[in-house]
Protein backbone atom coordinates (compact mmCIF):
# COMPACT_ATOMS: atom_id res chain seq x y z
CA UNK A 1 0.00 0.00 0.00
CA UNK A 2 2.73 2.40 0.96
CA UNK A 3 4.49 1.70 -2.34
CA UNK A 4 1.46 3.07 -4.15
CA UNK A 5 1.48 6.20 -2.01
CA UNK A 6 5.13 6.86 -2.83
CA UNK A 7 4.83 6.33 -6.56
CA UNK A 8 1.92 8.73 -6.74
CA UNK A 9 4.13 11.65 -5.66
CA UNK A 10 6.06 12.41 -8.80
CA UNK A 11 9.24 14.41 -8.33
CA UNK A 12 9.14 18.01 -9.57
CA UNK A 13 12.69 17.66 -10.79
CA UNK A 14 14.31 14.30 -11.27
CA UNK A 15 17.85 13.62 -12.45
CA UNK A 16 18.92 10.11 -13.42
CA UNK A 17 22.45 8.90 -14.11
CA UNK A 18 23.88 12.38 -14.56
CA UNK A 19 27.40 12.15 -15.98
CA UNK A 20 29.66 14.98 -17.02
CA UNK A 21 33.35 14.87 -17.96
CA UNK A 22 35.79 17.69 -18.49
CA UNK A 23 38.59 16.03 -20.46
CA UNK A 24 40.06 13.36 -18.19
CA UNK A 25 38.21 14.61 -15.12
CA UNK A 26 34.84 13.06 -14.31
CA UNK A 27 32.93 15.81 -12.55
CA UNK A 28 29.68 13.86 -12.28
CA UNK A 29 29.44 10.09 -12.31
CA UNK A 30 25.91 8.68 -12.57
CA UNK A 31 24.24 10.93 -10.02
CA UNK A 32 20.53 10.50 -9.23
CA UNK A 33 18.58 13.32 -7.62
CA UNK A 34 14.92 13.91 -6.84
CA UNK A 35 13.38 17.17 -5.77
CA UNK A 36 9.77 17.17 -4.59
CA UNK A 37 7.26 19.97 -4.56
CA UNK A 38 7.64 22.45 -1.73
CA UNK A 39 10.84 21.08 -0.23
CA UNK A 40 14.28 22.49 0.35
CA UNK A 41 16.99 20.10 -0.78
CA UNK A 42 20.54 20.80 0.32
CA UNK A 43 23.30 19.77 -2.04
CA UNK A 44 26.44 19.22 -0.01
CA UNK A 45 30.01 18.31 -0.76
CA UNK A 46 33.58 19.48 -0.58
CA UNK A 47 35.15 21.67 -3.25
CA UNK A 48 35.26 19.76 -6.52
CA UNK A 49 32.58 17.29 -5.43
CA UNK A 50 30.42 18.17 -8.42
CA UNK A 51 27.71 20.31 -6.78
CA UNK A 52 28.17 23.31 -9.07
CA UNK A 53 28.45 21.10 -12.15
CA UNK A 54 25.19 19.39 -11.26
CA UNK A 55 23.23 22.60 -10.75
CA UNK A 56 24.74 24.11 -13.89
CA UNK A 57 23.40 21.13 -15.84
CA UNK A 58 19.95 21.71 -14.32
CA UNK A 59 20.02 25.42 -15.11
CA UNK A 60 21.26 25.04 -18.67
CA UNK A 61 24.73 26.52 -18.23
CA UNK A 62 26.25 23.08 -18.96
CA UNK A 63 25.04 20.01 -20.84
CA UNK A 64 25.07 16.50 -19.41
CA UNK A 65 27.22 13.97 -21.31
CA UNK A 66 24.72 11.29 -20.39
CA UNK A 67 21.77 10.90 -18.09
CA UNK A 68 18.30 12.39 -18.11
CA UNK A 69 16.41 15.20 -16.46
CA UNK A 70 12.64 14.99 -16.03
CA UNK A 71 10.13 17.40 -14.65
CA UNK A 72 6.85 16.13 -13.19
CA UNK A 73 7.67 12.77 -14.73
CA UNK A 74 8.29 13.97 -18.28
CA UNK A 75 11.78 13.90 -19.69
CA UNK A 76 12.99 17.38 -20.69
CA UNK A 77 15.87 18.79 -22.69
CA UNK A 78 17.83 21.63 -21.08
CA UNK A 79 20.47 22.97 -23.45
CA UNK A 80 20.54 26.64 -22.48
CA UNK A 81 19.58 28.95 -19.60
CA UNK A 82 16.61 29.93 -21.75
CA UNK A 83 15.40 26.32 -21.88
CA UNK A 84 15.66 26.02 -18.12
CA UNK A 85 13.84 29.28 -17.57
CA UNK A 86 11.05 28.25 -19.93
CA UNK A 87 10.61 25.08 -17.84
CA UNK A 88 10.28 27.16 -14.67
CA UNK A 89 13.79 26.70 -13.27
CA UNK A 90 15.53 29.87 -12.06
CA UNK A 91 19.06 29.93 -10.70
CA UNK A 92 20.80 32.41 -8.42
CA UNK A 93 24.56 32.03 -8.82
CA UNK A 94 27.03 33.17 -6.25
CA UNK A 95 27.82 36.36 -8.17
CA UNK A 96 24.06 37.14 -8.10
CA UNK A 97 24.15 38.41 -11.74
CA UNK A 98 22.66 41.72 -10.64
CA UNK A 99 22.91 44.98 -12.55
CA UNK A 100 24.27 47.37 -9.94
CA UNK A 101 23.46 50.39 -12.06
CA UNK A 102 19.78 49.49 -12.33
CA UNK A 103 16.84 49.47 -9.93
CA UNK A 104 15.31 46.32 -8.42
CA UNK A 105 12.47 46.65 -10.95
CA UNK A 106 14.84 46.74 -13.91
CA UNK A 107 16.81 43.88 -12.40
CA UNK A 108 13.67 41.79 -12.11
CA UNK A 109 12.74 42.34 -15.72
CA UNK A 110 16.14 42.50 -17.44
CA UNK A 111 15.81 40.48 -20.64
CA UNK A 112 12.05 39.94 -20.16
CA UNK A 113 10.77 43.51 -20.01
CA UNK A 114 7.05 44.11 -20.12
CA UNK A 115 6.62 46.29 -23.18
CA UNK A 116 4.40 46.96 -26.14
CA UNK A 117 2.99 47.18 -28.70
CA UNK A 118 3.39 43.56 -29.73
CA UNK A 119 3.79 44.30 -33.45
CA UNK A 120 6.94 46.38 -32.86
CA UNK A 121 10.37 44.72 -32.84
CA UNK A 122 11.18 43.73 -29.26
CA UNK A 123 14.02 46.23 -28.81
CA UNK A 124 11.85 49.17 -29.91
CA UNK A 125 8.85 48.44 -27.71
CA UNK A 126 7.87 50.98 -25.09
CA UNK A 127 8.49 49.86 -21.52
CA UNK A 128 5.41 49.35 -19.38
CA UNK A 129 7.02 50.76 -16.28
CA UNK A 130 4.04 51.07 -14.01
CA UNK A 131 3.06 47.45 -14.57
CA UNK A 132 6.60 46.26 -13.91
CA UNK A 133 6.81 48.34 -10.75
CA UNK A 134 3.48 47.08 -9.43
CA UNK A 135 4.38 43.46 -10.15
CA UNK A 136 7.79 43.83 -8.50
CA UNK A 137 6.28 45.47 -5.44
CA UNK A 138 3.70 42.69 -5.24
CA UNK A 139 6.33 39.93 -5.30
CA UNK A 140 8.50 41.69 -2.73
CA UNK A 141 5.53 42.15 -0.45
CA UNK A 142 4.48 38.54 -0.77
CA UNK A 143 8.01 37.45 0.18
CA UNK A 144 8.15 40.12 2.90
CA UNK A 145 11.32 41.60 1.48
CA UNK A 146 11.82 45.21 2.53
CA UNK A 147 14.01 47.37 0.29
CA UNK A 148 14.86 51.03 0.87
CA UNK A 149 13.43 52.08 -2.48
CA UNK A 150 12.24 50.31 -5.60
CA UNK A 151 13.66 52.97 -7.93
CA UNK A 152 17.12 53.27 -6.34
CA UNK A 153 20.03 51.43 -7.88
CA UNK A 154 20.85 47.99 -6.53
CA UNK A 155 24.52 49.01 -6.25
CA UNK A 156 23.64 51.21 -3.29
CA UNK A 157 22.09 48.35 -1.33
CA UNK A 158 23.65 46.18 1.35
CA UNK A 159 24.81 42.62 0.66
CA UNK A 160 21.68 41.15 2.23
CA UNK A 161 19.36 43.39 0.29
CA UNK A 162 21.15 42.52 -2.94
CA UNK A 163 20.86 38.81 -2.16
CA UNK A 164 17.18 39.36 -1.40
CA UNK A 165 16.69 41.08 -4.77
CA UNK A 166 18.41 38.20 -6.60
CA UNK A 167 16.45 35.51 -4.74
CA UNK A 168 13.11 37.28 -5.15
CA UNK A 169 13.81 37.81 -8.83
CA UNK A 170 14.35 34.06 -9.22
CA UNK A 171 11.27 33.34 -7.12
CA UNK A 172 9.13 35.73 -9.14
CA UNK A 173 9.79 33.94 -12.40
CA UNK A 174 10.33 30.34 -11.27
CA UNK A 175 7.12 28.39 -11.59
CA UNK A 176 8.78 25.16 -10.40
CA UNK A 177 12.32 25.25 -9.07
CA UNK A 178 14.70 27.81 -7.57
CA UNK A 179 18.39 26.87 -7.40
CA UNK A 180 20.52 28.84 -4.95
CA UNK A 181 24.31 28.64 -5.09
CA UNK A 182 25.86 29.56 -1.72
CA UNK A 183 23.14 32.07 -0.82
CA UNK A 184 24.67 33.05 2.52
CA UNK A 185 28.39 32.83 1.73
CA UNK A 186 28.95 36.58 1.46
CA UNK A 187 26.62 37.67 4.25
CA UNK A 188 26.87 38.55 7.91
CA UNK A 189 24.90 36.72 10.61
CA UNK A 190 21.88 38.99 10.60
CA UNK A 191 21.63 39.15 6.83
CA UNK A 192 22.07 35.39 6.51
CA UNK A 193 19.16 34.95 8.86
CA UNK A 194 16.95 37.09 6.66
CA UNK A 195 17.87 35.11 3.57
CA UNK A 196 17.14 31.82 5.36
CA UNK A 197 13.73 33.16 6.37
CA UNK A 198 13.14 34.11 2.77
CA UNK A 199 14.01 30.58 1.62
CA UNK A 200 11.54 29.18 4.13
CA UNK A 201 8.77 31.51 2.94
CA UNK A 202 9.46 30.50 -0.64
CA UNK A 203 9.14 26.84 0.24
CA UNK A 204 5.94 27.46 2.19
CA UNK A 205 4.56 29.09 -0.95
CA UNK A 206 5.10 25.79 -2.77
CA UNK A 207 8.36 26.40 -4.62
CA UNK A 208 10.93 23.60 -4.70
CA UNK A 209 14.40 24.76 -3.79
CA UNK A 210 17.90 23.37 -4.21
CA UNK A 211 20.47 25.01 -1.96
CA UNK A 212 24.18 24.53 -2.47
CA UNK A 213 26.00 25.53 0.68
CA UNK A 214 29.09 25.08 2.79
CA UNK A 215 27.43 26.52 5.85
CA UNK A 216 26.28 23.41 7.73
CA UNK A 217 24.39 25.40 10.37
CA UNK A 218 22.29 27.06 7.73
CA UNK A 219 21.66 23.78 5.95
CA UNK A 220 20.54 22.10 9.16
CA UNK A 221 18.18 24.94 9.80
CA UNK A 222 16.48 25.23 6.46
CA UNK A 223 16.83 21.98 4.49
CA UNK A 224 14.26 19.17 4.51
CA UNK A 225 16.67 16.72 2.93
CA UNK A 226 20.36 16.67 2.14
CA UNK A 227 22.21 14.96 -0.68
CA UNK A 228 25.95 14.58 -0.30
CA UNK A 229 28.28 14.37 -3.29
CA UNK A 230 31.90 13.33 -3.24
CA UNK A 231 34.15 13.20 -6.30
CA UNK A 232 31.18 13.30 -8.62
CA UNK A 233 29.22 10.51 -6.96
CA UNK A 234 26.25 10.60 -4.66
CA UNK A 235 27.48 9.15 -1.36
CA UNK A 236 24.50 9.78 0.86
CA UNK A 237 21.03 11.14 1.29
CA UNK A 238 19.59 11.93 4.69
CA UNK A 239 17.42 14.22 6.73
CA UNK A 240 19.51 16.92 8.39
CA UNK A 241 19.15 17.10 12.15
CA UNK A 242 21.34 17.35 15.22
CA UNK A 243 21.66 13.55 15.19
CA UNK A 244 22.74 13.25 11.57
CA UNK A 245 25.05 16.28 11.66
CA UNK A 246 28.10 14.15 12.34
CA UNK A 247 27.19 11.64 9.70
CA UNK A 248 26.75 14.34 7.07
CA UNK A 249 30.12 15.87 7.85
CA UNK A 250 31.88 12.53 7.62
CA UNK A 251 30.10 11.79 4.34
CA UNK A 252 31.34 15.12 2.97
CA UNK A 253 34.95 14.60 3.99
CA UNK A 254 34.87 10.89 3.30
CA UNK A 255 35.72 9.64 6.82
CA UNK A 256 32.79 7.21 7.01
CA UNK A 257 34.22 4.66 4.62
Amino acid sequence: MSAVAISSTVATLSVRGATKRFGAVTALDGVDLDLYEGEVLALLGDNGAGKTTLIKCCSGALRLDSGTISMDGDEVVIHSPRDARALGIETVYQDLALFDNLSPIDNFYAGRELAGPAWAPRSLRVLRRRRMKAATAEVLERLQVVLPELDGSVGLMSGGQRQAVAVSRAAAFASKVVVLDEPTAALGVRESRKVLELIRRLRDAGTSIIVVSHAMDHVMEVADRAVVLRRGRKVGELIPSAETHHEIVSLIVGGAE
Partner: protein
Amino acid sequence: MEQFAVSEPEKDSRSLSTVDPRKLTIDRYHALRLGLLALRMGPLLILLILIGVVAATTPVFHTTQNLGNVLSQTSVISILALGQLLVIVSRGIDLSMGSTIALSSVVGALLYQDGYSAGIVIVAILATGVAVGFVNGAVYVWGRVPHPFIVTLATLSAVRGIALWASDGTLIFGMPGAVQKVGSDRIGWFPISYLVVIGLAMLVLVLTTKLVWGRWLYAVGGNPDAARRAGIPVSRVLITVYVLSGLAAGFGGLLVAGLTNAGSPNYGELAELDAIAAVIIGGAAFAGGRGHVGNALVGALTIGVIRNALNLHNVEAFYQLIVIGVVIVVAVEADVVRGYLENRFRVVQAARQS
Protein backbone atom coordinates in the same frame (compact mmCIF):
# COMPACT_ATOMS: atom_id res chain seq x y z
CA MET B 1 43.67 41.98 33.71
CA GLU B 2 40.42 40.06 34.07
CA GLN B 3 38.83 42.85 36.02
CA PHE B 4 39.66 45.28 33.26
CA ALA B 5 38.02 43.04 30.70
CA VAL B 6 34.84 42.91 32.76
CA SER B 7 34.61 46.63 33.32
CA GLU B 8 35.02 47.41 29.62
CA PRO B 9 31.53 46.46 28.35
CA GLU B 10 29.99 48.41 31.21
CA LYS B 11 31.68 51.57 30.07
CA ASP B 12 30.46 50.86 26.55
CA SER B 13 26.84 50.48 27.53
CA ARG B 14 26.93 53.75 29.43
CA SER B 15 28.25 55.67 26.44
CA LEU B 16 25.60 54.00 24.31
CA SER B 17 22.85 55.46 26.42
CA THR B 18 24.16 59.00 26.05
CA VAL B 19 24.55 59.01 22.25
CA ASP B 20 22.03 56.95 20.36
CA PRO B 21 24.09 55.14 17.69
CA ARG B 22 20.99 54.50 15.65
CA LYS B 23 20.35 58.20 15.30
CA LEU B 24 23.97 58.69 14.35
CA THR B 25 23.75 56.25 11.44
CA ILE B 26 20.53 57.82 10.27
CA ASP B 27 22.12 61.27 10.25
CA ARG B 28 25.10 59.90 8.36
CA TYR B 29 22.67 58.24 5.97
CA HIS B 30 21.03 61.55 5.13
CA ALA B 31 24.38 63.32 4.85
CA LEU B 32 25.57 60.68 2.38
CA ARG B 33 22.36 60.90 0.40
CA LEU B 34 22.79 64.65 0.18
CA GLY B 35 26.42 64.31 -0.87
CA LEU B 36 25.53 61.84 -3.63
CA LEU B 37 22.75 64.11 -4.86
CA ALA B 38 25.15 67.08 -4.92
CA LEU B 39 27.61 65.04 -6.99
CA ARG B 40 24.86 64.01 -9.38
CA MET B 41 23.81 67.63 -9.85
CA GLY B 42 27.44 68.83 -9.79
CA PRO B 43 28.09 69.19 -13.53
CA LEU B 44 24.90 71.21 -14.06
CA LEU B 45 25.67 73.43 -11.05
CA ILE B 46 29.20 74.02 -12.32
CA LEU B 47 27.82 74.98 -15.74
CA LEU B 48 25.29 77.40 -14.20
CA ILE B 49 27.92 79.00 -11.93
CA LEU B 50 30.26 79.27 -14.89
CA ILE B 51 27.59 80.99 -16.95
CA GLY B 52 26.83 83.35 -14.04
CA VAL B 53 30.50 84.28 -13.59
CA VAL B 54 31.08 84.83 -17.29
CA ALA B 55 27.88 86.86 -17.65
CA ALA B 56 28.92 89.04 -14.71
CA THR B 57 32.45 89.66 -15.97
CA THR B 58 31.82 90.11 -19.70
CA PRO B 59 28.99 92.34 -20.91
CA VAL B 60 29.04 90.74 -24.36
CA PHE B 61 28.41 87.19 -23.12
CA HIS B 62 24.69 87.40 -22.57
CA THR B 63 23.87 89.18 -25.78
CA THR B 64 21.70 86.92 -27.89
CA GLN B 65 24.25 87.20 -30.68
CA ASN B 66 26.95 85.68 -28.47
CA LEU B 67 24.62 83.03 -27.01
CA GLY B 68 23.88 82.04 -30.59
CA ASN B 69 27.62 81.80 -31.19
CA VAL B 70 28.09 79.57 -28.14
CA LEU B 71 25.30 77.24 -29.24
CA SER B 72 26.52 77.15 -32.83
CA GLN B 73 30.09 76.42 -31.73
CA THR B 74 28.80 73.70 -29.38
CA SER B 75 26.45 71.94 -31.77
CA VAL B 76 28.94 69.55 -33.39
CA ILE B 77 30.55 68.50 -30.11
CA SER B 78 27.07 68.08 -28.56
CA ILE B 79 25.98 65.68 -31.28
CA LEU B 80 29.23 63.75 -31.07
CA ALA B 81 28.81 63.62 -27.28
CA LEU B 82 25.32 62.09 -27.68
CA GLY B 83 26.81 59.27 -29.75
CA GLN B 84 29.83 58.89 -27.50
CA LEU B 85 27.50 58.75 -24.49
CA LEU B 86 25.82 55.60 -25.82
CA VAL B 87 29.22 54.05 -26.47
CA ILE B 88 30.58 54.95 -23.04
CA VAL B 89 27.46 53.67 -21.26
CA SER B 90 28.03 50.34 -23.05
CA ARG B 91 31.58 50.23 -21.56
CA GLY B 92 33.16 51.18 -24.88
CA ILE B 93 34.85 54.08 -26.58
CA ASP B 94 34.69 55.42 -30.13
CA LEU B 95 37.90 57.08 -31.33
CA SER B 96 36.89 57.20 -34.99
CA MET B 97 34.38 60.08 -34.79
CA GLY B 98 36.70 62.83 -36.03
CA SER B 99 37.85 60.79 -39.02
CA THR B 100 34.23 59.92 -39.78
CA ILE B 101 33.40 63.65 -39.90
CA ALA B 102 36.17 64.11 -42.46
CA LEU B 103 35.17 61.17 -44.66
CA SER B 104 31.45 61.96 -44.60
CA SER B 105 32.08 65.61 -45.53
CA VAL B 106 34.36 64.50 -48.40
CA VAL B 107 31.79 61.97 -49.64
CA GLY B 108 29.12 64.68 -49.56
CA ALA B 109 31.33 67.21 -51.38
CA LEU B 110 32.31 64.72 -54.10
CA LEU B 111 28.69 63.73 -54.74
CA TYR B 112 27.62 67.37 -54.88
CA GLN B 113 30.44 68.05 -57.35
CA ASP B 114 29.06 65.24 -59.50
CA GLY B 115 25.70 66.99 -59.54
CA TYR B 116 23.69 64.88 -57.12
CA SER B 117 20.73 66.45 -55.36
CA ALA B 118 20.75 67.80 -51.82
CA GLY B 119 18.71 64.82 -50.57
CA ILE B 120 21.20 62.28 -51.92
CA VAL B 121 24.14 64.26 -50.54
CA ILE B 122 22.62 64.41 -47.06
CA VAL B 123 21.72 60.71 -47.05
CA ALA B 124 25.23 59.83 -48.28
CA ILE B 125 26.87 61.90 -45.54
CA LEU B 126 24.82 60.19 -42.84
CA ALA B 127 25.18 56.75 -44.46
CA THR B 128 28.97 57.15 -44.42
CA GLY B 129 28.76 57.58 -40.65
CA VAL B 130 26.51 54.54 -40.31
CA ALA B 131 28.90 52.47 -42.44
CA VAL B 132 31.95 53.36 -40.34
CA GLY B 133 29.96 52.66 -37.18
CA PHE B 134 28.85 49.29 -38.50
CA VAL B 135 32.44 48.33 -39.29
CA ASN B 136 33.47 49.35 -35.75
CA GLY B 137 30.68 47.34 -34.16
CA ALA B 138 30.98 44.31 -36.41
CA VAL B 139 34.75 43.97 -36.07
CA TYR B 140 34.54 44.51 -32.30
CA VAL B 141 31.76 41.99 -31.72
CA TRP B 142 32.23 39.35 -34.42
CA GLY B 143 35.99 39.74 -34.59
CA ARG B 144 36.06 39.20 -30.82
CA VAL B 145 38.49 42.10 -30.36
CA PRO B 146 39.20 42.48 -26.64
CA HIS B 147 38.39 46.21 -26.48
CA PRO B 148 36.73 48.72 -28.83
CA PHE B 149 39.67 51.09 -28.26
CA ILE B 150 41.72 49.02 -30.69
CA VAL B 151 39.04 48.72 -33.37
CA THR B 152 38.15 52.39 -33.36
CA LEU B 153 41.83 53.35 -33.23
CA ALA B 154 42.22 51.37 -36.44
CA THR B 155 39.27 53.08 -38.09
CA LEU B 156 40.49 56.47 -36.81
CA SER B 157 43.55 55.91 -38.97
CA ALA B 158 42.03 54.05 -41.91
CA VAL B 159 38.95 56.26 -42.34
CA ARG B 160 41.02 59.45 -42.42
CA GLY B 161 43.31 57.72 -44.91
CA ILE B 162 40.33 56.95 -47.14
CA ALA B 163 39.15 60.58 -46.84
CA LEU B 164 42.60 61.84 -47.89
CA TRP B 165 42.72 59.38 -50.77
CA ALA B 166 39.22 60.19 -52.02
CA SER B 167 39.83 63.95 -51.90
CA ASP B 168 43.45 63.92 -53.07
CA GLY B 169 44.23 65.55 -49.76
CA THR B 170 42.52 68.81 -50.65
CA LEU B 171 39.51 70.76 -49.48
CA ILE B 172 36.56 70.45 -51.87
CA PHE B 173 34.32 73.50 -52.05
CA GLY B 174 30.58 73.45 -52.48
CA MET B 175 27.64 72.06 -50.49
CA PRO B 176 23.94 72.03 -51.36
CA GLY B 177 21.97 75.04 -50.10
CA ALA B 178 20.03 72.91 -47.63
CA VAL B 179 23.23 71.63 -46.04
CA GLN B 180 24.62 75.16 -45.78
CA LYS B 181 21.37 76.29 -44.20
CA VAL B 182 21.43 73.60 -41.53
CA GLY B 183 25.10 74.23 -40.80
CA SER B 184 25.17 78.02 -40.63
CA ASP B 185 21.73 79.69 -40.70
CA ARG B 186 19.91 81.02 -37.67
CA ILE B 187 16.28 81.56 -36.79
CA GLY B 188 16.53 84.96 -35.14
CA TRP B 189 19.62 84.41 -33.00
CA PHE B 190 19.06 80.66 -32.55
CA PRO B 191 21.30 78.50 -34.76
CA ILE B 192 19.51 75.80 -36.77
CA SER B 193 22.42 73.47 -36.05
CA TYR B 194 21.43 73.50 -32.38
CA LEU B 195 17.88 72.57 -33.34
CA VAL B 196 19.43 69.44 -34.83
CA VAL B 197 21.12 68.88 -31.46
CA ILE B 198 17.81 69.22 -29.63
CA GLY B 199 16.04 66.88 -32.05
CA LEU B 200 18.71 64.21 -31.76
CA ALA B 201 18.86 64.64 -27.99
CA MET B 202 15.12 63.94 -27.79
CA LEU B 203 15.56 60.80 -29.87
CA VAL B 204 18.41 59.55 -27.67
CA LEU B 205 16.35 60.43 -24.58
CA VAL B 206 13.42 58.31 -25.78
CA LEU B 207 15.75 55.51 -26.84
CA THR B 208 17.56 55.38 -23.50
CA THR B 209 14.67 55.91 -21.11
CA LYS B 210 11.46 54.70 -22.76
CA LEU B 211 12.37 51.77 -24.98
CA VAL B 212 13.46 48.23 -24.25
CA TRP B 213 16.69 48.85 -26.18
CA GLY B 214 17.69 51.48 -23.60
CA ARG B 215 17.25 49.01 -20.74
CA TRP B 216 19.39 46.52 -22.62
CA LEU B 217 22.05 49.18 -23.16
CA TYR B 218 22.31 49.94 -19.44
CA ALA B 219 22.21 46.22 -18.60
CA VAL B 220 25.07 45.50 -21.02
CA GLY B 221 27.04 48.43 -19.60
CA GLY B 222 26.34 47.43 -16.01
CA ASN B 223 27.08 43.71 -16.20
CA PRO B 224 27.70 42.19 -19.66
CA ASP B 225 27.89 38.62 -18.31
CA ALA B 226 24.60 38.89 -16.48
CA ALA B 227 23.05 40.53 -19.53
CA ARG B 228 24.04 37.54 -21.65
CA ARG B 229 22.69 35.13 -19.04
CA ALA B 230 19.44 37.12 -18.88
CA GLY B 231 18.93 36.47 -22.59
CA ILE B 232 19.67 40.04 -23.73
CA PRO B 233 21.08 40.07 -27.30
CA VAL B 234 24.37 41.66 -26.21
CA SER B 235 26.10 41.50 -29.61
CA ARG B 236 23.21 43.16 -31.38
CA VAL B 237 23.00 45.89 -28.76
CA LEU B 238 26.72 46.63 -29.08
CA ILE B 239 26.66 46.77 -32.88
CA THR B 240 23.69 49.16 -32.73
CA VAL B 241 25.60 51.33 -30.28
CA TYR B 242 28.50 51.79 -32.72
CA VAL B 243 26.16 52.33 -35.67
CA LEU B 244 24.39 55.11 -33.74
CA SER B 245 27.73 56.60 -32.73
CA GLY B 246 28.78 56.56 -36.39
CA LEU B 247 25.47 58.16 -37.34
CA ALA B 248 26.13 60.92 -34.78
CA ALA B 249 29.53 61.50 -36.39
CA GLY B 250 27.75 61.63 -39.77
CA PHE B 251 25.50 64.39 -38.41
CA GLY B 252 28.66 66.12 -37.16
CA GLY B 253 30.08 65.92 -40.66
CA LEU B 254 26.86 67.33 -42.09
CA LEU B 255 27.00 70.39 -39.80
CA VAL B 256 30.71 71.03 -40.34
CA ALA B 257 30.30 70.73 -44.12
CA GLY B 258 27.29 73.06 -44.03
CA LEU B 259 29.06 75.63 -41.87
CA THR B 260 32.14 75.75 -44.12
CA ASN B 261 30.40 75.06 -47.43
CA ALA B 262 33.03 72.39 -48.13
CA GLY B 263 34.27 68.88 -47.47
CA SER B 264 37.80 68.28 -46.24
CA PRO B 265 39.92 65.29 -45.17
CA ASN B 266 41.31 67.47 -42.37
CA TYR B 267 37.98 68.14 -40.65
CA GLY B 268 37.23 66.80 -37.20
CA GLU B 269 40.77 66.25 -35.97
CA LEU B 270 40.64 65.29 -32.26
CA ALA B 271 36.87 65.84 -32.28
CA GLU B 272 36.37 62.41 -30.69
CA LEU B 273 38.43 63.52 -27.72
CA ASP B 274 36.22 66.60 -27.27
CA ALA B 275 33.20 64.31 -27.29
CA ILE B 276 34.71 61.95 -24.71
CA ALA B 277 35.69 64.95 -22.57
CA ALA B 278 32.16 66.34 -22.80
CA VAL B 279 30.58 63.06 -21.68
CA ILE B 280 32.98 62.74 -18.72
CA ILE B 281 32.71 66.42 -17.71
CA GLY B 282 28.94 66.02 -17.90
CA GLY B 283 29.10 63.34 -15.22
CA ALA B 284 28.70 60.00 -16.99
CA ALA B 285 30.83 57.15 -15.65
CA PHE B 286 33.76 56.25 -17.88
CA ALA B 287 33.54 52.68 -16.56
CA GLY B 288 30.14 52.33 -18.21
CA GLY B 289 26.57 51.65 -17.14
CA ARG B 290 25.81 55.15 -15.94
CA GLY B 291 25.09 58.34 -17.88
CA HIS B 292 22.20 60.13 -19.57
CA VAL B 293 21.47 62.64 -22.28
CA GLY B 294 21.77 65.53 -19.81
CA ASN B 295 25.37 64.54 -19.07
CA ALA B 296 26.34 64.78 -22.75
CA LEU B 297 24.61 68.13 -23.34
CA VAL B 298 25.83 69.76 -20.11
CA GLY B 299 29.38 68.57 -20.71
CA ALA B 300 29.42 69.88 -24.28
CA LEU B 301 27.97 73.24 -23.18
CA THR B 302 30.54 73.51 -20.39
CA ILE B 303 33.35 73.11 -22.88
CA GLY B 304 31.63 75.58 -25.24
CA VAL B 305 31.14 78.22 -22.53
CA ILE B 306 34.74 77.89 -21.30
CA ARG B 307 36.06 78.38 -24.84
CA ASN B 308 33.73 81.28 -25.50
CA ALA B 309 34.53 83.01 -22.18
CA LEU B 310 38.28 82.75 -22.66
CA ASN B 311 37.86 84.08 -26.19
CA LEU B 312 35.84 87.04 -24.93
CA HIS B 313 38.54 87.72 -22.34
CA ASN B 314 41.17 87.52 -25.07
CA VAL B 315 42.90 84.72 -23.27
CA GLU B 316 45.40 82.87 -25.42
CA ALA B 317 44.27 79.55 -26.90
CA PHE B 318 46.70 77.40 -24.94
CA TYR B 319 45.00 78.47 -21.70
CA GLN B 320 41.74 76.99 -23.04
CA LEU B 321 43.43 73.63 -23.42
CA ILE B 322 44.86 73.81 -19.91
CA VAL B 323 41.53 74.83 -18.35
CA ILE B 324 39.64 72.05 -20.11
CA GLY B 325 42.31 69.58 -18.98
CA VAL B 326 41.83 70.69 -15.39
CA VAL B 327 38.03 70.39 -15.69
CA ILE B 328 38.38 66.83 -16.97
CA VAL B 329 40.50 65.89 -13.96
CA VAL B 330 37.97 67.51 -11.61
CA ALA B 331 35.13 65.57 -13.26
CA VAL B 332 36.95 62.26 -12.97
CA GLU B 333 37.86 62.98 -9.34
CA ALA B 334 34.20 63.71 -8.66
CA ASP B 335 33.44 60.25 -10.00
CA VAL B 336 36.05 58.75 -7.65
CA VAL B 337 34.53 60.59 -4.67
CA ARG B 338 31.13 59.37 -5.78
CA GLY B 339 32.33 55.77 -5.77
CA TYR B 340 33.73 56.26 -2.26
CA LEU B 341 30.49 57.80 -0.97
CA GLU B 342 28.47 54.99 -2.53
CA ASN B 343 30.61 52.47 -0.65
CA ARG B 344 30.04 54.30 2.63
CA PHE B 345 26.35 54.46 1.79
CA ARG B 346 26.17 50.68 1.42
CA VAL B 347 27.73 50.19 4.85
CA VAL B 348 25.36 52.65 6.51
CA GLN B 349 22.50 51.02 4.64
CA ALA B 350 23.40 47.63 6.14
CA ALA B 351 23.63 49.19 9.62
CA ARG B 352 20.23 50.83 9.22
CA GLN B 353 18.60 47.49 8.51
CA SER B 354 19.22 46.27 12.04
